[in-house]
Structures are given as C-alpha cells and as structure tokens.
C-alpha cells in the first residue's frame, strides 16, 4: 500500500471553548476520492478548513492532533507548520473549492487577475506565460469562449461558469490534493452533474486525490471511492462506498441512508408514501387518492410577467416572462408538484396563485371562486383557505414574537375562537412539546422552526397549502421527518399541497401529480408514475439523467456532460409568445408540443 497523501490523526478543533471537531482520524491515498458526509454541525467543513489551516481565520483553533502531509519524500505535520510554509502549500499542493460560486470570486477583479495571481505567487512565470496558462485552464474546465472570459468580471458569468472558474483557480498549480467543500450544493441539478463529471475527469487525467465534503448521499454514491461519515464532530464510520451503502455498520449511517429519498424508489407504487425512518414504529400508510377526484384548485392559462426598467426615466423596456400560459388542476387531498431548475418560474407561479405577486392574465379558481378577480377585501377572506410555507424557516418567523402569538395571530385575523387551545393542539399535531409555546424562534432548530411554519399555515384550517421549497434548507434526516409530517397531515386532514421543489427525488416521494416547468411553461404534466417512469419531453429526460441516485451501483457521470443552457426569459415589449399546446401521451399525461 502506498503512503497516504494526507493522514489526519486525532484532530480536535475548538471555537471559543466549544469543540466543533472532537476526535477525527482518516487518511487519503493519492488519486483517491474520499467523501466526508454529514449533516450541518457535524464538523465536516471545519475538518477540511483545518487541513488548509484556514480554520484559524474563522476564529477556530486546532487543539490537538496531527495533520500529516506528504511532501516529496518527507512527511510533515501541518499543525506545526509556520505561516510561510502554509502559504506555499495552499493553492500549490492543496487546492480548495467552496460552496457558493456566486460569492467565491472577487467582484472587482477580472477573471484573468484572479486566475493568474495564484500562479504568479507559486511559480516563476512571466505575466504573459501566466495568461497562457490561465487560458489553458479555462479550456480544461470547458468554459466557452475562454479568451473573452479572461477580461470579464464575475458578475457577467452564470453560476455554473463561476464554479468552473473557481475549479480552474484551484487546479492552477496542479495540486496533489483537491478539497471540495459542498461544491455543487448551490447549483442546479444539471449543472451539478456537469461539475461532478468535470471533477471526475480532472481527477483521472491529473491523478490527484479529492477530499469531497457534502451532505448529499446521492452525490456521495456517484463519486466516492471511500466514505467518511461524520456526526457531531466525530467520525462514526469509514469504509469503501459500496460497503457503506450496502451494509452500513453504524446506527447513524443506517438512519441517514433511510432518510434519503432515492429517485426510482417509488417505481410501481400507486400513491405517495412516507419514508420508513429508523426507529419509526408506526406503519406508514400510503396516500391513496379518492376514487373520483374532486378538483380544488384550477389554474388556467396563468401568465405572469415582470417589467424590466431602464433608461433615465425608468421606463419598462422589456419583460421577464416568468410564467407563460400555465394550466393545471390540484385535487382535494392530493399533491401536485411543480418541479424545475432555478428561474423556471415555479415560485412565481405559486406566488401568482396566492396573489403575492399579481398575474398578468389567466384564471385561478379555488373551490369555484376566481382568486384573481377578488377585490382586496374579498381576497383577505379567501386567504384563509390558501396558506403558504416558505423555504427559509429562519427568515419566515418573526424573531420578536413568541411562538404562541405567531400561531394565534392568523386565527385572530379570521376571528377564530379558542385560539390558545387550538395553538396547543397544533403543537401536538406537528410533534412539538407544548412548553415550546412560550419560546422565541431563535430557541428552536431549523427543523422545529419549519414545523412551526407548517403549524402556522394549518392554524386557519386551509384547504390548500403552497409549499415553496419547504424542505430544501433542512438536513436530510430533518427533511424526511418534515416530509412525513406533511404527508401524515394530508392523510388526516385532507389537505391539498402545491409542492414547489427542485429536488426530483423528494417530488417523486410526495406527489400524486407532477408538472415539470421550463422557461415559464409546463413542459410535461401527469400522474407521478407516468412522468417519472415514462418521461416524454426531452427536458424531463435530461433532468432525470442529471439527478444523482443514492446508489453506488448506478453511476452515470462518465464522460463530459453538457446540458443545453437555459435561454433568457427576458423579451422585448412587442414579443408575442405562442400558446402552450399539449399532446396527450397517456391517461392525464400531457407533453408540451414544440411550437414554432
């Protein structure tokens, strides 16, 4: 066995007294991809930042342990290395990429400067030679028109392109180890697939080792050679990827894997079904729809456009066609999911239905009444029947109000009685202890807050709940619990959900019907089984191809992937969009016809 490129021994890292990493040991072999997986607060990022000795800049301190790093024939301990040595290692022998491509690049320097200054630091190059290398790097990460990019600034590039630039920066000096800290978490699924394929290729060609930090078991299954599972600052399990997925030893790993919805899990099922979590005793019941569907929400030809202002007089110069001729029906007690990538109009669609933004045209009938035709006063009454759960449970609760007040406030608005009793019952319903009623939001965890957000939506007994990325910000285990809660509530209270999400696996788990959105239109709509098991539209197919599957036996990231970039939804004022025309390909299963 060759010597490991890096060996972490008994690492312990503290932040002002509290230990974020308690006792972590593992090693990485040359040319190997090791995935560090864990939920928020597990210490996985802190471990990677310690290896670069960057943790000190964030107020952390390495309290104990060794970071043995192989340099040539010498093994040195990075814990005791001085600042100058670390500088010569960073970016040179260890490269690193981060989570947020939108903020990873300096907004006031152009791409060339950001690509070359690391090179000039570590290698004796002339400026023109460095520029040539920068061009080469951009070609390597498959950026179109690399010459033009060098002179551009970060805000002129898309998120996927920025992440490619960040990778190019990290690869500049041909590091022997690349640390990737959640490099695809903020990206759309097709771009994620492209970036993962790119990392795989670069790893093969250059033969570098990769330390990949992620919370996403599906990504782990796709790229890892070995896996390190972390929980609350400790390593709970280490092993080859196949073993971890096939026969997890640690209880935490088993629980984590049980909580991950896998694309394809629902094949052959007729109705959504809660996930079977470890330690969950009661048998989950499937959400069989009623024999004769009863429509609750009927959306017809919904169109929403936002003005783009320009010029000295701030006139409307163009329009964003956010939602374009969208029609669908949500039945009582059922879930329809709107799925698509960022900017496809799924959120605008949900907001237009609730009239949080005003639609340009179309009709929205809720229980027979047209929501879009209501006066302000009437609308207020209607809002009792349609509620919303938002993505960020930290931002959607008022930090100055006790939870009880936040739950009783909507009831007070609609003149409901027994408010305090009802609030307590809602707490029971969403599985929170009643003594939490007196607490403030900051005293709760993210999952608990999202339960409050659900309870608040339920407070006025609505028929329809629009859930906009309601579980996207949560850890997998918490996400699974919240999803199960939502499904349980649906079974008991006969609620309908309009479930807006970018996560295909989650959508597959919860939906009765699915609508795939692209550029403001629904390109494919139908029963869950039809859309997932027999996708017809090319966009649905490429989306399905891009979704990573949490199974190391189903890898699909070979070769370079290049999905068609999504065109701009901004059009001049005189632009006349065509109508959405659908072809029926199965029972209730319709596909957008490519119109000319």
């Amino acid at each position, binding site marked *: 066995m060759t010597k490991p490129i890096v060996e972490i021994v008994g690492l312990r890292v503290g932040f002002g007294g509290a230990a974020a990493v308690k006792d972590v040991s593992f090693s990485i072999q040359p040319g190997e991809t090791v995935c560090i997986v864990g939920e928020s607060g597990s210490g996985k990022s802190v471990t990677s930042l310690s290896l670069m000795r960057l943790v000190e800049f964030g107020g952390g301190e390495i309290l104990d342990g060794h970071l043995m790093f192989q340099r040539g024939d010498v093994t040195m301990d990075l814990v005791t290395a001085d600042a100058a040595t670390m500088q010569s290692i960073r970016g040179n022998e260890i490269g690193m990429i981060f989570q947020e491509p939108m903020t990873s*690049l300096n907004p*006031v320097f152009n791409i060339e400067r950001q690509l070359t200054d690391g090179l000039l630091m570590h290698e004796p190059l002339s400026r023109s030679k460095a520029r040539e290398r920068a061009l080469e790097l951009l070609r390597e990460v498959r950026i179109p028109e690399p010459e033009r990019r060098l002179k551009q600034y970060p805000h002129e590039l898309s998120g996927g392109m920025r992440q490619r630039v960040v990778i190019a920066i*990290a690869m500049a000096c041909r590091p022997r180890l690349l640390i990737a800290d959640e490099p695809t978490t903020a990206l759309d699924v097709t771009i994620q697939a492209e970036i993962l394929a790119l990392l795989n290729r670069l790893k093969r060609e250059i033969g570098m080792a990769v330390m990949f930090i992620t919370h996403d078991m599906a990504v782990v299954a796709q790229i890892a050679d070995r896996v390190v599972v972390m929980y609350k600052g400790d390593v709970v399990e280490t092993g080859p990827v196949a073993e971890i997925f096939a026969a997890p030893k640690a209880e935490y790993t088993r629980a984590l894997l049980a909580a991950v919805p896998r694309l394809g899990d629902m094949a052959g099922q007729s109705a959504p079904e809660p996930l079977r979590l470890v330690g969950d005793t009661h048998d989950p019941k499937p959400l069989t729809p009623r024999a004769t569907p009863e429509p609750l929400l009927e959306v017809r030809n919904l169109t929403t456009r936002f003005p783009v202002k320009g010029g000295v007089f701030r006139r409307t110069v163009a329009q964003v066609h956010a939602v374009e001729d969208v029609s669908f029906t949500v039945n009582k007690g059922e879930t329809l999911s709107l799925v698509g990538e960022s900017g496809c109009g799924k959120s605008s669609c949900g907001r237009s239905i609730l009239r949080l933004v005003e639609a340009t045209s179309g009709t929205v009938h809720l229980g027979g009444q047209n929501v879009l035709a209501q006066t302000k006063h009437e609308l207020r009454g209607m809002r009792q029947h349609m509620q919303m759960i938002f993505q960020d449970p930290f931002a959607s609760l008022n930090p100055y109000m006790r939870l009880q007040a936040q739950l009783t406030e909507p009831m007070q608005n609609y003149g409901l009685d027994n408010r305090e009793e009802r609030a307590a019952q809602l707490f029971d319903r969403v599985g929170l202890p009643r003594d939490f009623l007196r607490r403030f939001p900051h005293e709760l965890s993210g999952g608990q807050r999202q339960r409050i957000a659900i309870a608040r939506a339920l407070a006025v007994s609505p028929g329809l709940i629009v859930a906009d990325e309601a579980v996207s910000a949560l850890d997998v285990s918490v996400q699974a619990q919240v999803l199960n809660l939502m499904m349980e509530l649906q079974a008991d209270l006969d609620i309908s959900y309009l479930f807006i999400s970018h996560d295909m696996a989650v959508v597959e788990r919860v939906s009765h019907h699915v609508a795939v959105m692209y550029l403001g239109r629904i390109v494919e709509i139908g029963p869950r089984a039809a859309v997932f098991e027999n996708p017809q539209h090319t966009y649905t197919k490429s989306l399905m191809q891009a979704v990573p599957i949490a199974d190391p036996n189903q890898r699909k990231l070979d070769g370079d992937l290049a999905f068609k970039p999504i065109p701009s939804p901004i059009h001049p004022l005189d632009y006349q969009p065509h109508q959405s025309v659908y072809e029926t390909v199965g029972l209730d299963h319709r596909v957008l016809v490519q119109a000319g």
Partner: protein
Amino acid sequence: MQLRRGGNSRCFTPGTCMTYIANRLLSVALTLLLISVITFMVTNILPGDVAMVIMGTQSNPEALAGLRESLGLNDPLIVQYGRWIGGMLTGDWGNSLVFKEAIGPLIANKVAASALIVVMSMTIALAAAIPLGVWAAVHRDKWQDTTASTTALMGVSLPDFFWGIMLILLFARYLGWLPSSGFVHPADDFIAAVRHAFLPSLALGLGLMAHLTRMTRSTMSSILSQEFIRVARAKGLTEHTVIWRYALANAIGPVMTVAGLQVGYLFGSIIVIESLFNFTGMGWLTYQALLNRDIPLIQSTVFVIAAVVMITNLVVDLLYAAIDPRIKLP
C-alpha cells in the same frame, strides 16, 4: 444616486460615461436654479432690506426711499430675481455691501482658501480612518477593535470646535509648533499656507475620521467574512495581499461615497472652524455675510457651496463606477 447594478459588459465606457455626466450636470443645474429661487425668496422675506443695511436703521426715511428706488428694490420680486439671476449667469455677481468689492473675485479667492482646508482635512481623515478601520476589522471583537471603536466614538461625540480649542492650546500655546490663526495664500508661500491650514484641517479631520473609521470597519468586516476572501487565502496569497488588495478594493467604494457626502457636512463645519482660527475662507466669509446681513453675498455663498458639494458628489460617483465593474451608469 442613480447607480444600478447588472449589465453584461464593462459599463464604464467613454460613450455612456459622457452621456451620464451630461445628464448629471443638467440635474445639478436644475437643482442650483431651485436653490437660487429659495435663497432669493428667503433673504427677501426676512425683515429689513439692503437699503436699510447700507444706510443704517437711524437713517433718513426719504434718503432710504431714494436708495430703494435706485437699487430697484421697489420692482416686483420676479423682476428683481430675474435681474439677479441674469447677473449671476453673465458673471456679474454684484458687490458685497460689507467688503465693498465685487463678489465674484472675492468668492473665488475664498473658495481657494477653503479648498485647501477641505482637501487637507479629508486627506488627514482618510489617511487615518482607512488603516484604523481595516485594523479594527481584521481584529474584530478583539482589543484592537474596541480601541479603534472607542477612538472613533470620541471623535464623533465631541464637536469639532472643541477639538479646535484643544489643538490651539496644545500645538500653538504650549508647544508653539504651529500658528494658531490666520491664512497665507499657497501661491505666496506654500509651506506657510500648509502650516496655517494644518490645525483647522486637523480639527475638522478628527470628526470626519470617526465616521469614516466606522464605515471602513463595518464594510471591511462584512467583506472579510465573504467566501472570495477564503478563496484568496486558499490560493496561497499573503495576508497582506488578501487584506490590502482583495478586501480593500471592495471596501473603498462605499467609504468614498460616505466621504463625498461628508464634503457637504464639511462646508457647514468650516463656518465655525474658520472663524475660530480666523482663517479667511468660505466659512469665514459666509459667517461675515450672515453677521452683517450682506444679502447679495449670502445669496452667492450659499449658491457656490451648493454647487461645490453637488459636483464633488458627482465626481465621487464617477470614481465609484470606475472602481467597481458592477456599477452601471444609467
């Protein structure tokens, strides 16, 4: 400020830049017109008039009426305003009642004197505030930060004439290093001019510095916690480069904008400080004009100060756009 983010090419191109400057100058001109109307109205609504100021309150009513007639004070206000603004536009700003000389050259002279103080105090403030603010941001929540914040708070809480008095006592009275009052024109003796302008500039600079330090600190500390700073460190750049190039390049725009807005505040402060140091600049002149009800002079000084402040802010906005590629000039 009409700046906008976005766009898909480097926005600071000569063509758009010239249109932008033309638009902004037009809006400066319109604002000045409005200011001229307001100052003219206010000075006319106040009791007493120019004739009274010239002849004194004890003067003969008939002589007063004669003077009023000859000065055109009996004409309708609109006619008087038209005559005044016409003069302003053609360069004939009239005569000061107190100084008995043409207002145009008088103001030009004093503007040059005050410019020396404004530039020096701003330089002193920026030269101290930026390093201090960066130092505080780099050592956030440590003793360095507390020290810098306390210093800044002291600077803000104490009025600048207090600093003026303290500086006179220390540097002029006890140490005798610098003159306590007076003005020397830079063209006559540059060293002497700077020596005379130094204490008033320092007194003004201390107050400015406090604001700018706080601005630098808060901008820098939010920038230092951003991911691109981590990326810069992960590239192996030195701390010096990371802080003084990567971070400061992002912080300098907001700091300059605040500095630009403070030029307006400075022109308020120099009224007190120039009088305290007997430094004969615009502040001193405005004070004299107000004290002696020299109405033509008041109108002109207000007008000039407004113009200088507006043009300074235009220059700052252009500089901001030159530094930050995300800013698009409309």
